[in-house]
């Protein structure tokens, strides 16, 4: 295996990529899908309420607001700067806490609390920020709340649909870049006869396959990470996320290789991908419909890469919790790789008209 030749072919494919409509489509599709689903089900265009605080003392309220999830809090020094930012709608609201505010509240002195609301801010954000602030002041005072609130959920308790759709979007990123790109690149080489031209140079067929596999691995990996980031689905640590994404991209790309080796032209390749589509896609559906028997998802090969992404990237679990899934994915990848290499010998003979 001459890695230098592999690198040259990979560089060629990456350079030619932007000139290929399939390449561009495969890269744009996950972004488009993210936008469509996020517009439909929310989160991407639901910015967090933005609060600015000028704290002249060292209020407990500032610390609690800053630590609170779902709020974007900025601590400033100058009330004039705060005011101008609220007026410019750079912040939804501004809070000025005088020195000794906490002590005054606890002593029952009813100190002044300046709370500025931006005229252009969303009503929902105003309500969230003002109610949250008042609750914190009341808690500081030490009084019991005037009413006991009981929250009753109607319907199924579970993750919001926007979260459950993440495996679908990531799956698309992986399949578009990992399956389509190496597959179509290989088929194109066959259709245009350039593969035959490569194979009468010092390049060997297995080096071509490795270059195509790396193309899929690289692009599927990047697309999956970008898609996760776009969907704010990186709850775990980045290194663990990169590991699960890399394994996922490797398996997706080896599927692409198989498709490329097996298909003699683009029409056959699209027919194979269409035929395999539901088989590949099935595991992602089990995240949308958690009532379905989850063990069925394990029967599909891409479950073993979607599940680690779900657990590590979305749910924030440790890498060790998906060791089995990653192991199975690596074994499947290796097995399919060997199969692709065997089929490549037949492909080479077919190319020469044998």
């Amino acid at each position, binding site marked *: 295996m*001459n890695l*230098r*030749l592999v690198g*040259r*072919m990979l560089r*060629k494919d990456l350079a*030619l990529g932007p*000139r*290929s409509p399939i390449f561009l489509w495969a890269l744009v599709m996950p972004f488009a899908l993210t936008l469509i689903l996020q517009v439909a089900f929310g989160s991407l265009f639901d910015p967090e309420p933005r609060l600015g605080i000028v704290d002249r003392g060292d209020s407990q309220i500032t610390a609690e607001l800053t630590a609170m999830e779902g709020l974007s809090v900025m601590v400033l020094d100058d009330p004039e700067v705060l005011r101008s930012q609220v007026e410019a709608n750079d912040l939804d609201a501004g809070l000025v806490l005088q020195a000794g505010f906490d002590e005054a509240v606890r002593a029952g002195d009813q100190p002044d609390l300046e709370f500025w609301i931006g005229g252009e801010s969303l009503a929902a954000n105003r309500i969230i920020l003002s109610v949250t602030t008042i609750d914190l002041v009341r808690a500081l005072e030490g009084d019991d709340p005037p009413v006991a609130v009981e929250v009753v959920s109607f319907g199924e308790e579970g993750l919001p649909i926007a979260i459950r759709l993440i495996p679908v979007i990531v799956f698309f990123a992986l399949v578009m870049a990992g399956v389509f790109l190496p597959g179509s690149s290989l088929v194109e080489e066959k259709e*245009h*006869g*350039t593969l*035959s*031209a*490569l*194979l*009468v*140079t*010092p*390049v*060997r067929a297995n080096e071509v396959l490795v270059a195509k596999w790396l193309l899929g691995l690289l692009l599927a990996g990047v697309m999956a990470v970008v898609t996760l980031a776009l969907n704010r689905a990186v709850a775990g640590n980045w290194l663990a996320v990169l590991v699960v994404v890399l394994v996922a991209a490797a398996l997706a790309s080896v599927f692409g290789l198989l498709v490329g080796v097996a298909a003699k032209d683009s029409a056959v390749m699209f027919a194979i991908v269409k035929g395999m589509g539901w088989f590949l896609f099935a595991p992602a559906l089990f995240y949308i419909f958690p009532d379905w028997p989850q063990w069925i998802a394990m029967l599909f090969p891409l479950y073993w890469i979607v599940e680690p992404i779900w657990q590590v990237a979305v749910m924030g679990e440790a890498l060790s919790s998906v060791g089995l899934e990653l192991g199975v994915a690596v074994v499947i990848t290796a097995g399919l790789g060997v199969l692709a290499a065997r089929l490549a010998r037949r492909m*080479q*003979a077919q*190319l*020469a*008209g*044998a």
Partner: protein
Amino acid sequence: MAAIEVEDLRYSYGDVEAVKGISFEVAPGEVLGFLGPNGAGKSTTIKMLTGQLRPKGGRATVLGFDVTADDPQMQARIGVCFEEKNLYLNMTGKENLEFFASLYGIKDPDALGVLRRVGLADRAKDRVGQYSKGMRQRMMISRAFINTPDVLFLDEPTDGLDPVTSAAIRTTIREEADRGAAVLLTTHDMFEADQLSDRVAFINDGEIAALDTAENLKLRYGTRSVKLRLRDGDGVREEVLPLDHASSARLADLAGSPDLLTIHTEEASLETVFIQLTGRGLAG
């Protein structure tokens, strides 16, 4: 040592025997023309010699490398021009050459210089997809030259091209042979084979029917004769005389006749010889 040595080489597609035990050699600097109709086994032979097909029998070496050994060192020293124009259409001419040069490990290849040789230097920065058929064929030839190969395999290099482009390509092929490259040229164009080849192999139905210089083949299998056109009253009559001792008196007599209009030698063409040897023409 011969650059290409082939002995009893065989290949079959299923039950159909395409190459039936052919043997030949090509020396460095020699152009061997493989002349035969479509389906005669020319391209199959090239595919075996370039490592694309594994022979089903016999043996062949290229530059001393056994063609069944799948040795990249052999491919590093050969150049192949396919019949099918298999170029990267989304790359420019220069990018195509630079990419293939990189596969041979050539640093700073003179892609422009190679393109200049085939008259494509001014289109070097255009994508090959925008090239005409003739330009793509010249591009194919230039790609085969990019590694300065010791052996060139050219499969129908001028097929379907206009006479000017064909002549330009023949010139560059001859230059490569003069440089010392062994050239195996397949063609069904007897004119091309006659012009370019140092020796010609007639291949028919997977077998070599004859192998010699074009001149020897024509002499051996053709008829040496002259055709004379003579005034005959108000019309014209033709007379064909063999170039032998028995006809010399008659020829001298007619040559001095005021009725003689034209006189032409009747050399056998390679096609005539091919038909004589195989019973079929080159076109089919």
